[in-house]
């Protein structure tokens, strides 16, 4: 067993344990803390696989996103009646059903796919996660096809380069709209109070 495999088993089991604790913990802030570990463990697996960019993005997006969850958990439940969440039997049964169905789908899909054997990531990590290549592929300047014999859903008909710039821009504009909306909703509404007081 190589070091990578050993580390993989350690990180994966810790991630699984944290994910389990998210479900089993009844205190909402503790659950958020366990979620933090589960997501950070996922980032660790990405780093082990040599994809530094995805790992760092996982850290900044998901682990950073958990921050907001923790803050809301703290703010809404610090003194309130929702500090402890107790699930009823019906909720347990329903979520177990959905969980097992999702797990079965993923397990069947994983085991049914013939995965191409890939080399372990080379020791020189700079060659693997080259962000410039990623960005160029993103803009459609160069095309990166997956290596190996992967069954395609539909065969590539014409070899025009695929660019993801338009979807990216649409998502950006969407996020900007959300930001402006949030700022509008959260703005200080003092002027109206002053005018009412004056009236």
């Amino acid at each position: 067993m190589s070091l990578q495999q050993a580390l993989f088993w350690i990180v994966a089991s810790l991630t699984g344990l944290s994910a389990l604790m998210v479900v089993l913990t009844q205190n909402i802030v503790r659950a958020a803390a366990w979620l933090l570990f589960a997501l950070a463990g996922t980032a660790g697996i990405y780093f082990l696989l040599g994809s530094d960019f995805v790992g760092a993005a996982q850290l900044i997006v998901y682990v950073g996103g958990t921050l907001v969850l923790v803050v809301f958990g703290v703010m809404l439940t610090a003194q309130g009646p929702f500090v402890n969440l107790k699930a009823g039997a019906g909720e347990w049964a329903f979520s177990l059903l959905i969980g097992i169905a999702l797990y079965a789908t993923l397990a069947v899909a994983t085991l049914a796919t013939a995965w191409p054997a890939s080399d372990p990531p080379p020791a020189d990590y700079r060659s693997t996660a080259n962000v410039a290549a990623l960005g160029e592929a993103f803009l459609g300047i160069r095309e990166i096809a997956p290596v190996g014999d992967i069954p395609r859903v539909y065969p590539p008909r014409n070899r025009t380069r695929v660019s993801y710039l338009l979807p990216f821009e649409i998502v950006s504009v969407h996020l900007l709209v959300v930001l402006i909306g949030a700022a509008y909703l959260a703005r200080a509404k003092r002027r109206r109070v002053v005018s009412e007081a004056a009236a």
Partner: protein
Amino acid sequence: MPVVFSDTSEWSTMVLPAVWALLSAFFLLGFVLVSAIFFVWLERKVSGRIQDRLGPTRVGGKFGWLQTVADGVKLLCKEDSIPAAADHFLFRLAPYLALCGSFVAFVALPFGNGVVARDMGVAVFFMLAVLSSEVFGVIMAGYGSGSKWSLFGGIREAAQVVSYEVPRTICVLIPVIVAGTLNLTEIVNQQNGFFWNWYIFHDPLNFIAFWVFFICGTSSCKRAPFDLAEAESELVAGFHTEYSGFRWLLFFMAEYGSMAAVCGIAVSLFMGGWHTGILPFDPALKLGESMGTAGMILGNLVNVVVFIVKGWGGIFVMMWVRWTLPRLRIDQVMMVCLKYLLPISCFLLVMIGVWQLMIPDIVSMVWKYGSAAATVILTAVWLINVWRKPSLSPPGVTGWATRPPALPGSSAGKEQAVAGV
């Protein structure tokens, strides 16, 4: 420093990488801890000098250089108390989370040419991602303490970090756009040679970006004037009100560690990293060519020392700022970020693209040499001015070096004379 193995035996795949990882962790932890010991002492001395007193003078003979060790022994002997209202799990977890957040960032920070625990392609991105997770420790300490002061501190810290992360990240992008890579080793190597090659002198936008980044970095280390999370005049001690002993110590290790990490990023991106700026070559490469591996190691020793000295310079400025400026209010902190730093950094991000594409070479050359020369001249003038002023008051008089002009009708002079007696 990537290690390449030719065979795939048990020894090379299991033991050597593990030894390498443990060794780098040992050195990085040693660096963080030793610099924390030094910074605690320096903070006392700097605050003393700024407040016109001497700071520690007795412990360990001259200059009180053993003061930190005495502090550490005191902290280890303190009672380790957990409040009854605390959430025990989160209370115990929080200091370790905070320390991890600031310590793991050093994995990707190059101290010299190739002297890095893991040379990542996305080193800057990784460091920012990890550094921003230090806030979890603070929030969990705030919530887990079961105290309203701690909770206020933690929530303030969350609001502050979420806001300041945005301009900080945008400011990092500006030298990255000039460099064309996220790899810190490569970014520093592009600034090889004399100091006008540093990215801070590359164009006016990088010059502004450095200061905006430094302000945001100071804020993200929750240093005064942005130390709203502790704010001892309002919140007792903020998020670490309920902590004592070793756990409290860990929070301070985390604070000094993240200061060192932020200054390390600033030095690597803007100030030429391990390059001295007064040598036209990189000592590691130059000696490596002539003397082989031994020369490479020797040159890198010089590089590491230069890098650490530059980083410590940045930390000294942070201390200087802390003991000079008063603490801002929380609304002022938010206003500085959202009304000023964020628009400035967005403007810089747009303009750096314009500068890179539109500005003719002659203009950027003039700016490069001109700004470097102006900086050197202004620094020299300032240093001479500081040198000519007395730095210490004569015995029996306080506030002599920077005495404010006496207001008519006030008895400031009399009071100071009395205080000096």
